């Protein structure tokens, strides 16, 4: 683990460890929000993790943000950690004043031709003070910050019960926008998927730990089920895919801002998505009926894995893009393409 990762883990774990049982998550799913922990999260300065120091942030950038998102994924934190970090960063980069409010990101892909704009699956919109809407206009990326009072919000949730709301607002509001330099819509979509891959990499580690722990405790036929080869072999593959994901995400983080950022993020999301399904399946097989209950905390992680693997592009969608890129080579040689992407 890098020094930065260790530093983030040591200081943020104190907050995140509070969510080790199902209660807080179930409260969230019922529409609640852990306000006090959120306030501490903000007071500890995590909200501005990605901002440059001259803008009042910690200067850790997106790579530091990803490490915090991984940790939040590990603890299945019922807070919009990834979303708030990114939205705060996007708004500040576009020139809006940094503040301590909860902002969440939304991407508007089509050109607006109606009076009202509706966006689907906006994360945590119901609890946000504003939605940071990113869109394209005159070949530039624009950012509008649409305040909560101007939004009509229809509640929706992903499989983990995390808010994914439908928001509607007046198209006129998009006239008040700032230009976001350096970050295209395409890049932002890619970043959002790396955010999910980072969360998945954390959740996978937690699920693996729970699975090993359970297999070593649960006794059937007179011995711990972890002693059975059939069980061991499945958990071994789960571990392989878990660490492949950690590696893929680490590599994508390492090569942010390189010309191949997008392809490496695609690799990370594909790897994470494949691992998510296998890990959830295996963990539930090992835990058997108790893992299928709401009370047992395994589901906090597995429902997130099932949700996150599809958000901002699933394995097939990213593989289609990656496949297109690597088959479209002028050099007619995949090997060259591969070896110029990373060291």
């Amino acid at each position, binding site marked *: 683990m890098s020094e930065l990762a260790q530093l983030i883990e040591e200081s943020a774990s104190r907050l995140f460890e509070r969510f080790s049982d199902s209660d807080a998550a179930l409260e969230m799913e019922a529409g609640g929000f852990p306000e006090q922990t959120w306030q501490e999260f903000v007071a500890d300065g995590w909200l501005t993790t990605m901002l440059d120091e001259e803008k009042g942030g910690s200067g850790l950038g997106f790579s530091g943000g990803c490490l915090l998102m991984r940790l939040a994924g590990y603890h299945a934190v019922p807070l919009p950690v990834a979303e708030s970090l990114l939205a705060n960063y996007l708004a500040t980069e576009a020139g809006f004043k940094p503040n301590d409010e909860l902002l969440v990101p939304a991407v508007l892909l089509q050109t607006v031709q109606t009076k009202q704009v509706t966006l689907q699956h906006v994360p945590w919109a119901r609890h946000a003070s504003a939605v940071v809407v990113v869109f394209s206009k005159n070949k530039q990326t624009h950012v509008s910050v649409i305040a909560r009072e101007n939004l009509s919000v229809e509640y929706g949730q992903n499989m983990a019960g995390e808010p994914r709301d439908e928001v509607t607002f007046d198209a006129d509001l998009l006239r008040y926008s700032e230009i976001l330099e350096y970050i295209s819509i395409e890049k932002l979509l890619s970043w959002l998927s790396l955010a999910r891959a980072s969360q998945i990499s954390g959740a996978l580690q937690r699920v*693996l730990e729970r699975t*090993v722990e359970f297999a070593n405790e649960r006794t059937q036929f007179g011995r711990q089920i*972890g002693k059975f*080869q059939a069980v061991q072999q499945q958990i071994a593959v789960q571990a392989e895919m878990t660490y492949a994901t950690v590696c893929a995400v680490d590599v994508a983080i390492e090569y942010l801002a390189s010309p191949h950022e997008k392809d490496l993020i695609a*690799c990370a999301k594909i790897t994470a998505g494949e691992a998510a399904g296998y890990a959830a399946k295996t963990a539930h097989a090992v835990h058997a009926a108790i893992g299928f209950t709401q009370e047992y905390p395994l589901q906090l992680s597995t429902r997130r894995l099932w949700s996150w693997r599809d958000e901002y592009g699933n394995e097939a969608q*990213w593989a289609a893009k990656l496949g297109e890129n690597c088959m479209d080579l002028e050099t007619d040689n*995949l090997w060259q393409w591969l070896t110029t992407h990373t*060291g």
Partner: protein
Amino acid sequence: MQALNYKPVHTSEKEAALRKQVRLFLAEYGPFDTPNLIDSWSVCDPKFSRALAGKGWLGMTWPTEYGGGNKSYLERYVVIEELLAAGAPVGAHWVADRQSGPLLLRFGTEEQRLEFLPKIVHGECFFAIGMSEPNSGSDLSSIKTRAERVEGGWLVNGSKIWTSWAHVCQQMITLVRTSPPSDNRHAGLSQFIVDLNAKGITLRPIVNLAGEQHFNEIFFDDAFVPDDRVVGELGEGWSQVMAELAFERSGPERFLSSYQLLEAGIKTLREANKTQQATIVIGQFVARLMVLRQMSLSVANQLQAGKLPVNEASVVKDLGTSFEQELAEALRLILDREPRSTAKTGVERLLSDAILKAPSFSLRGGTREILRGVIARGLGLR
């Protein structure tokens, strides 16, 4: 539970320059014959090995006093991955360079090093691995080949099997029992350097299902091995074998055996009207390859730092051999071509070779089930 470490690695200008050199070399020697492209590290071409030796690419990481290049593991990595990706016939020297040489460096006597390492570096001495026996495969410590003490050395009796290229190699690192089995199954095993041309040794060729002959069964009938050919400590054979595993299991040969099929498959798809489904399959395999390569590079870098990440290496091998096996299974469904064993060139031939050779990928060097057992133990199960 100890987390596995695959910290990302950056190669430098030095490696990039070396990569260029290897590509120039390959442009001169390649492209290689289609029937030799799949699993090219099982294709034996002593002349090609000597050409590599001429470039200083055998024994690259070894100290210069033994003829080595004193280069880093990352530099060696760049050379071998370029050769493997091109399907170059590197089988003759592969074991000596990857495994036997490093074993002698780690455990051998000064005399053994001076005797063998320069010859390996010059492509004049190839090594085979003598571990498996007819009744001992995954259960390696159950081997029966035994050595009895006689004046000046040992008399070996028994047999070894699945020994690749023993009929071409001069020497074989051979695991034998030097004291009777005891409660400690791993005790009493030793490694010998056996001269394959010595008296009392006979070879029986074994043809594999693809019609190739690189396997052998080797019989020892009172074969004499002098004392100075014992590697390391007598009775420490098991721990010495274990120490090789991180080298043996983590390299790019564990996922590049069928790589040329991917290259040819992409070419075929580009010439046809590829479907969305085909593009997705290619993207999924390229993603796996990209990540495997990073994991493998990371292990190489840890080896450079003097660590022996055996669990990390086992993961690379299991994921890697699954990749190289599944590649053929996936491509046959999107290429719209039938595998053809009689074709001399083309993707049909590569498909055929990749399918026929695939079973061995996850058997050699520790079966899939053994590796997963190792990983499970590392996780704290068992």
